[in-house]
């Protein structure tokens, strides 16, 4: 075993009171690809931010090649030899490929030859660098004219040219097709053989096994462990990530099992729903009183399904029927008119209207449905908001205060209240429990079950399998942007994990 190239010990970081990293150790050796794994909120991105100088940790220290380092900024970390390539390529699309590699470090002509940038040297060096990664393109063309896969290679070329010793790749494969992934991996193997230490963050388990030498797993800001890849199989890896051994008995589930789903036409039914670059071939049926869980890893297409169902994105193919009637969904207003309710995943950017009062936030959708001219009577608004606040137990000192003053959990309840205020026949919830404490989560889930008992149809999207199992009548699993299959609500965790982790299989709704 080679000596560690980058060693971080006891890294602790706290975001506004919430611990994000708690005494994490992380080691990268020269000439290895090291997969950093964990669920959403496990602390992966915080750890990367600490390693690249974006955040300075509360405690812990780092060493690169044996000497202690304290990176203070991305630029500083780069100069030390730690470079990062993000999923969203941080380059300038309007500059040429070669310029992007050398921006800020362009070779200059000596003054006797007129000074200025030496474009010939710049282009030929860029070409050489990219050929080293087995990429042969016209480096004088603008970067934006190339696909993301090439842009990523350019970002990697830039990173290694700034004397990178450790290269961190954050979700590099999310928007690549399988051939592009293979090309990227070939380049990574070549860099590995040159002695680079590569940190690879991804949600695609297959890719971890295709390229990595070691795996480090984080959970809730803590280190779970570090294993050589051959010592940790798929099931064990997922268990480490979600914090549950597959052998443990499944939790009693099917909370709505005693209220049999009403037969007849489904409230919502989707057939062959697809959108380029989003999801492919989604088939769903949700009936009255049913909670359909949607499971899948981040980037599997969970959220995209919700966006298509609610008309936020237009589908390229497929159809949606509400109460048996086929409907056109090009705009959320249309979906609302058809009786759909939606709670978006990004509460802050897509849900809450910060400066408005709690009451206005709750009745916003109901009011919007009433049209441009008719204002809901104040008494009516008060009655609805009071009732929903009581129903969902929204704890606010004053419902006329601005919503920004509420805690995350209470804001989330307001978003559910907003959707419920329209008395929808179907409610779509995208990660309604994200960023909420345990008690809040339990409360929200109890309320979902109660709503379903009253006959509401619910589509419930969540990253936490345990939550899904607790409330869902059935669970459909998304994997790599296609529907992997649908399971009964009492199938048990093992079955869900198996379906999430399985190698791509033909769609079987």
């Amino acid at each position: 075993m080679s000596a560690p190239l980058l060693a971080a010990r006891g890294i602790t970081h706290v975001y506004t009171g919430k611990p994000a990293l708690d005494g994490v150790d992380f080691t990268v050796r020269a000439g290895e690809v090291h997969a950093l794994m964990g669920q959403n909120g496990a602390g992966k991105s915080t750890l990367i931010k600490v390693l690249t100088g974006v955040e300075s940790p509360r405690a812990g220290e780092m060493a690169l090649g044996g000497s202690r380092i304290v990176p203070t900024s991305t630029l500083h970390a780069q100069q030390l030899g730690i470079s990062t390539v993000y999923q969203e390529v941080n380059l300038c699309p309007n500059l040429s490929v070669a310029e992007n590699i050398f921006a800020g470090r362009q070779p200059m002509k000596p003054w006797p030859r007129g000074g200025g940038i030496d474009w010939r040297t710049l282009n030929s060096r860029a070409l050489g660098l990219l050929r080293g990664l087995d990429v042969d393109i016209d480096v004088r063309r603008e970067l934006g004219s190339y696909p993301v896969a090439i842009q990523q290679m350019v970002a990697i070329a830039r990173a290694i040219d700034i004397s990178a010793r450790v290269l961190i790749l954050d979700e590099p494969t999310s928007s690549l097709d399988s051939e592009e992934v293979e090309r990227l991996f070939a380049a990574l193997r070549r860099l590995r053989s040159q002695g680079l230490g590569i940190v690879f963050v991804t949600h695609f388990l297959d890719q971890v096994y295709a390229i990595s030498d070691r795996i480090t797993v984080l959970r809730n800001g803590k280190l779970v462990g570090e294993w050589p890849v051959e010592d940790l199989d798929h099931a064990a890896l997922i268990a480490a990530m979600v914090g549950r051994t597959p052998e443990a008995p499944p939790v009693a589930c099917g909370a709505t099992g005693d209220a049999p789903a009403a037969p007849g036409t489904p409230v919502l039914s989707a057939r062959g729903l697809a959108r380029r670059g989003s999801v492919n071939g989604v088939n769903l049926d949700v009936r009255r009183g049913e909670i359909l869980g949607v499971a899948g890893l981040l980037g599997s297409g969970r959220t995209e399904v919700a966006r298509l169902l609610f008309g936020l994105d237009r589908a390229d193919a497929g159809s949606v029927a509400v109460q048996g009637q086929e409907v056109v969904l090009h705009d959320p207003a249309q979906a609302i008119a058809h009786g759909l309710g939606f709670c978006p995943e990004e509460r802050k950017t897509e849900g809450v209207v910060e400066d408005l009062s709690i009451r206005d936030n709750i009745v916003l959708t109901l009011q919007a449905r009433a049209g441009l001219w008719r204002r809901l009577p104040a008494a009516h608004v008060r009655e609805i908001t009071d009732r929903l606040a009581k129903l969902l137990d929204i704890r606010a000192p004053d419902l006329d205060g601005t919503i920004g003053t509420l805690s995350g959990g209470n804001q989330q309840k307001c978003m559910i209240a907003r959707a419920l205020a329209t008395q929808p026949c179907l409610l779509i919830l995208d990660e309604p429990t994200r960023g909420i404490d345990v008690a809040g989560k339990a409360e929200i889930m109890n309320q979902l079950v109660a709503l379903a008992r009253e006959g509401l149809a619910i589509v419930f999207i969540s990253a936490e399998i345990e939550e899904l199992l607790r409330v869902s009548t059935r669970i459909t699993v998304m994997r790599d942007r296609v529907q992997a299959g649908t399971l009964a609500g009492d199938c048990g965790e093992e079955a869900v994990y198996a379906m999430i982790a399985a190698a791509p299989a033909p769609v079987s709704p």
Partner: protein
Amino acid sequence: MNTAAVRILGLDRRLVPLAATLALFIGLVVYGAVSYDAFLSPQVFLNLAIDNSFLCIVAIGMTFVILTGGIDLSVGSVLALTTMAAAALSKLGWSPWILVPLLLAGGSAFGAIQGFLIHRYRLQPFIVTLAGMFVARGLCYLIDTASIPISAPFFVAMAEARIPVGGGNSLSSGAVIAMITVAVALWLAHSTRFGRTVYAIGGNAKSATLMGLPVGSALVRVYAFSGGCAALAGLVMSVYMLSGYSLHAVGLELDAIAAVVIGGTLLTGGIGYVAGTVVGVLILGIIQTLVIFNGTLSSWWTRIVIGILLFLFCVAQRLIEARAGQKR
């Protein structure tokens, strides 16, 4: 590996607007040549360079600002303030050897302050330079509300200087200064790190910061450059008009923006060429020339035609952007 490149008629996407601009210019020249006998004389084109020299200089500074995704509304007023200061100070007997560098430095400093406010306090360029416009115009009035004639020998000599270009035709000193400015700007934009940083900021300011480029100092320098260009244009106009007047160049900033946009620079930044701006200025000039040649058309048609061209170019830009967005 050469896939998915956005190419229109085999041109790089960045060159499409420039090509459209050139085609428009040639079209206008051909139209003029067919319609009017005297149109194709060399002096008509030399006059184009002479009469639009200050617009050209201002538009070049504006090009850099717009390339970063910003805008500079103060240029017309800074120009006027420079003519006022030049007139007032030369009347007091200041030597041009002090006056000219001082005014150029003053214009640059004015721009630099605006750039600092925009960068440091994240203010909107539009509103900052708007306030700058008020300040500069107001300072003009503080000097004098009436027009001040310039009779200093230096300015008169410059005004009378004619640089022969053969065939009995000649250029004014202002036109030559404008050409030198164009050459310097071309070099700045395409051969210096500063120029490339300007493009990078316009392409994606966040990425430019993450790539470690000096975004802040480049922004300050861009507005300083624009202010300096405005002051230089002010000197050229002092020579051209031989007067300083607070109502010189009212609305020139709009013409400069129009020239930049018609020259193919995207108002969202990142894409555009100094050469395009020069053609844009020539297009504005030739429209004016055509209106004059026509004789029956009134002067306001110039403004309306410029507005229509601006509209067409902006819509075309939107279409190009939307297309690029789809590809991504």
